[in-house]
């Protein structure tokens, strides 16, 4: 049986259909809706809005606030995750035995469903009964239970800690894979040239690791920027909107206010911002990488 060129193309069809239905169509529809008024007031009939929804995004103090909250959350949590993940990966890479075991243990938090571990962390930080308060009270650090999730700074810290706990393993795993790809003879050559531990890291490990650093950071920042479940379950965006991320606000705009047009504009604006961040990371990390070789 001989299959011609034209017929062969049909084998792409299932993948193409999935891509169009699952990704292209929703994106196109969201962008389209973001240029229309579609809400309770219009009786759910779309009405052309031009740029009005986007102008509203810019002047909406709550959106700007949620953008700030999301940025703070993303920068702090991804920075912590990257630092800890890199340290753990470097250490694990040195292990001669039991690496598989260590890898599995570190990976456990990452495999848990976020909503469930968010509930868990909410209990850990619970006001009278939580583990954190019990620990700190028993060791005499605090005399009265602290309402961690009730004040802006502590609530944000609690969410960041939960996120770091869950997603550090992802960075750990990607970086460990990168480390194991580095040819050993390069280190030997470095030793012969009299390079110390720092020189090995700076001139061998880091340049080889950069593509993996880029991948892990881009993935994590995009995920962190879209954070919803952790915040929704732990604080619901409170207290006083101090942990309300862009996704939480967009969700409210869609589902509670039923303002589909404006919600779409928020989502589209977020994607544009994220693309900018990814571009910046590429410029920062991989432009250098390309020059190294």
């Amino acid at each position, binding site marked *: 049986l001989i299959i011609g060129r034209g017929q062969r193309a049909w084998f792409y069809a299932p993948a193409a259909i999935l891509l169009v239905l699952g990704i292209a169509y929703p994106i196109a529809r969201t962008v389209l809706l973001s240029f229309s008024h579609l809400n309770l007031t219009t*009786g*759910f009939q779309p009405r052309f809005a031009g740029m009005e929804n986007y102008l*509203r995004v810019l002047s909406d103090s709550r959106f700007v606030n949620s953008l700030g909250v999301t940025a703070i959350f993303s920068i702090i949590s991804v920075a912590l995750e990257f630092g800890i993940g890199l340290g753990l990966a470097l250490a694990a890479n040195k292990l001669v035995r039991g690496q598989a075991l260590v890898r599995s243990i570190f990976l456990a938090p990452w495999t848990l469903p976020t909503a469930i571990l968010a509930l868990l962390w909410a209990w850990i930080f619970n006001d009278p009964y939580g583990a954190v308060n019990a620990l700190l009270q028993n060791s005499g650090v605090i005399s009265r239970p602290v309402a961690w999730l009730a004040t802006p700074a502590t609530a944000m810290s609690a969410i960041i800690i939960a996120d770091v706990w869950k997603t550090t393993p992802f960075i750990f795993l990607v970086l460990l894979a990168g480390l194991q790809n580095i040819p050993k003879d390069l280190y030997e050559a470095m030793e012969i040239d009299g390079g110390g531990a720092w020189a090995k890291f700076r001139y061998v490990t880091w340049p080889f690791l950069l593509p993996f650093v880029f991948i892990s950071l881009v993935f994590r920042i995009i995920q962190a920027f879209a954070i919803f479940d952790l915040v929704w379950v732990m604080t619901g965006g409170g*207290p006083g909107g101090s942990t309300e991320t862009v996704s939480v606000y967009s969700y*409210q705009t869609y589902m509670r*206010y*039923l303002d589909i047009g404006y919600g779409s504009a928020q989502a589209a604006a977020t994607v544009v911002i994220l693309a900018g961040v990814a571009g910046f990371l590429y410029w920062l990390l991989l432009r250098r990488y390309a020059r190294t070789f």
Partner: protein
Amino acid sequence: MSSKRAAARVFFWTALAILLIASFRGSQSDSGGLSILMEPDGTGVWRDLVAEFNREYPGAPIRLIEGPPATNTREDMYSTSFLSGEAAYDIVYCDGIWVAKFAAAGWLADLSSRPTADDRADFLPVEFEAGSYQGKLYRMPAFTDAGVLFYRKDLVSKPPETFEQLSMLAQAMQTEDRWGFLWQGKQYEGLVTVFLEVLRGFGGEWIDAQTREVKIDSPETIQAITFLKNTIGTISPPSVTTYAEEDTRNIFQNGRAVFLRNWPYVWTLIQQAGGSFSQQIAMTPMVHAPGFASAPTLGGWGFAIASQSRDPGRAWQFVEFLTRPEQLIQVQQRQGRIPSRRSMIPAEFLPILTSARMRPVIPEYAQASDILQRWLSAALAGRVTPEKAVSEIATETSLLLKGGRP
């Protein structure tokens, strides 16, 4: 090897086909019944009532779905289901503040012709008003709530009527381990209900639902915010800005406060607990400024029918059954809720419930309430001045009601 693989492939596709067919048949068998999404049925009273109905009125069976306790979440579950057009729920156990939104979206069936003249006469008129949008009835009333001021009659001989009297009595009677006045100051819907009572007690208003005019930019609003803010740390605990209903009830029921603003369920719980403490508690309408009337905020639950329901006649039969006195009294006895039928309201609540006032019935209520909550909360925490909060609430709410476009 290859025959094994072929076998595995055949097995896989067959399994998939079976699953698909099974799922279609599963969804078809559902279409025989009607469903209602309710609160978690802790007392089991809803299960019993549904079983009683299915037994006594043969026909398509009613299925009870117990939702999560957070009313916001159930509101979103209804929205998701109705937006997708799948009519997962035929009957809506409906909070008063959802009526306008759901009705404007076209998700609720018009019930205007359903209640009998007797029902019209018996249920509180304000509940029919709260269940109506643009002149049509969308929600059959069932239970009524209104803000109440509880006080310790062993400490206070004559209940306060004005804000000033409340402050003075609270100040005089509070001690080292007993606060003067508890209210709900957390950033949530409860804060809006408390604030409205204070605002209207000063003669102010938030939104005129008829004209969609924003009334909040007034000296009365400043007075109301200032009153609440001044209680914090003086007659109310500093953490009152994180309290919801249950936090304040627990403190009050432990004897650690003189006055408590809350809902009638507290009375039921305290009476059920019995003991000497239940003898020390009395209630009075919420206080107001001299020359104005007490304005308890109305909060109530009723039943609505989804416009997407395939059998609205059967759905109404069930709603009509539930809102009869014989069924309402079972819920009253087991849950402590107060039926909206005047003939069933306990005498001690009648004056408070009949003076209750609605929150504005507008489709954008959730958004307007969120604006109010955010700025109120900021003003109470001292992050902005009351004047700044009022002007921000006024600007944002006006924008919203004009269609949300700058």
